[in-house]
């Protein structure tokens, strides 16, 4: 579980996040949604300590992240996996070396054990036989899957995904969403996803928060999205006439 308490963030005169209080539950896919500039990425970066909040704090279970020293932060981060928007795979490393990197850095596994762990992660993301390819030699969707494999190779307790569907075709997006949901459930980890993908919201949104102008304006599940009267969520999720018609059809059924 990750709990956010009274987070404020200001860049100069610009207030990006205002009094954010929320709990992201273990074993669930928690989604942060909102329009561009709403503060989603800043909130995600505050959660993982890449941006320091102006005030407020973040608890990883009972640990206050912002009271930890650098050494303790590094230790905690070994329990964290992250999938970046552009995958952030190391260009000069092969797929296998990319996934093995955290194992090389932090474990005393034998080469065979590392290899087994890498292969089992690649199997989980349905990507076998690409071990010796370089990131530039595989597609964007495959890079995302390698990114997920690298994020889960240390068996993290917390998984963060920054726009996991961006730049992917709808079918690959669905595969990535399912993969993240399955990993979350199987390993009972706390997963937080930053997305604008409405399909993800409806498919895997077990706990969704909507940010608008730096405020948390709505919280609920994908089921609540259909039934809520909140104008803010309706305007955001069902922004196009096509989606409005689709919603009407769903409710009629």
């Amino acid at each position: 579980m990750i709990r956010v308490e009274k987070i404020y963030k200001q860049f100069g005169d610009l207030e990006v996040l205002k009094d954010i209080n929320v709990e992201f539950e273990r074993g669930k896919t928690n989604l942060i949604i909102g329009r561009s500039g709403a503060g989603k990425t800043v909130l995600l970066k505050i959660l993982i300590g890449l941006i320091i909040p102006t005030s407020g704090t973040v608890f990883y279970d009972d640990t206050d992240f912002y009271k930890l020293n650098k050494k303790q932060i590094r230790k905690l981060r070994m329990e964290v996996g992250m999938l970046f928007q552009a995958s952030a795979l190391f260009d000069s490393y092969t797929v296998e070396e990319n996934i093995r990197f955290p194992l090389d850095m932090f474990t005393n596994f034998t080469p065979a054990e590392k290899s087994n762990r890498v292969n089992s992660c690649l199997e989980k993301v349905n990507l076998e036989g690409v071990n010796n390819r370089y990131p530039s030699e595989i597609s964007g969707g495959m890079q995302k899957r390698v990114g997920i494999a690298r994020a889960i190779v240390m068996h993290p307790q917390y998984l963060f995904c920054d726009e996991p569907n961006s730049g992917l075709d709808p079918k690959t997006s669905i595969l990535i969403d399912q993969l993240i949901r399955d990993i979350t459930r199987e390993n009972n980890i706390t997963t937080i996803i930053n997305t604008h993908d409405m399909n993800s919201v409806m498919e895997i949104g077990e706990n969704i928060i909507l940010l608008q102008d730096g405020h948390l304006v709505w919280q609920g599940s994908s089921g609540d999205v259909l039934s809520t009267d909140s104008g803010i969520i309706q305007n955001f999720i069902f922004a196009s006439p096509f989606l409005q018609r689709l919603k009407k059809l769903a409710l009629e059924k």
Partner: protein
Amino acid sequence: MLLGQSLGGPRKLNIYFRETIRHMMDIGIGSVIIVALIAFFIGAVTAVQFSYQLGGTLIPRYYIGYIVRDMTIIELAPTITCLVLAGKVGSNIASEIGGMRQKEHIDAMEIMGVNTASFLILPRVIAGLTMIPLLVFMAAIISIFGAFVASVPIGLFSADEFIKGLGMFYDPYNVFMMFVKSVVFAFILITIPAYQGYNVRGGSIELGNASTAAVVFSNVFILLSDYFIALLLTT
């Protein structure tokens, strides 16, 4: 501060060792040709110029060998080699680390719990401190060879005169001075670009600016430290 962080104890020595070897290959082997080429012509031009300047004077021709040797060892080999390397290696380090910052590779490592300052900078510093003095030593030898090849066959002075000059007034302390300079310059030309690259923000324009700043600052600091080392070691 960044330097302090980079000295933070490495977790896995074998990974750091592998990275250090990779950077030793990049910095050392990757710079051999350019350093050799420049050193050869520096030696050649020095010999030709001094031959011209000593022409018509009472100073014996064999002094050219002595002048070329000491100028090369004390000043030209360490300084010119490191100024060139500040351009080649320094801009490469700033762009490589800066590119990693922009592509979120550094953030990815941070989130894994890696001490990125240490992982990205320490192996480069060790590689630089090991390889650059060797390159400077090589440059000194090639420079003297260049002076010989460019002057003796065209009759500016004889081989005997040049070799006699090379053996005159030899002081091993000058070689020590060359190595002191090369170590200090190596440290400068690795750490300044690493700092510029590590702290780059923004897009390609900022990356270009960081790379330029890395080369300019490295050159300025190399020249400044050259002066202070000369003062310290010769007065």
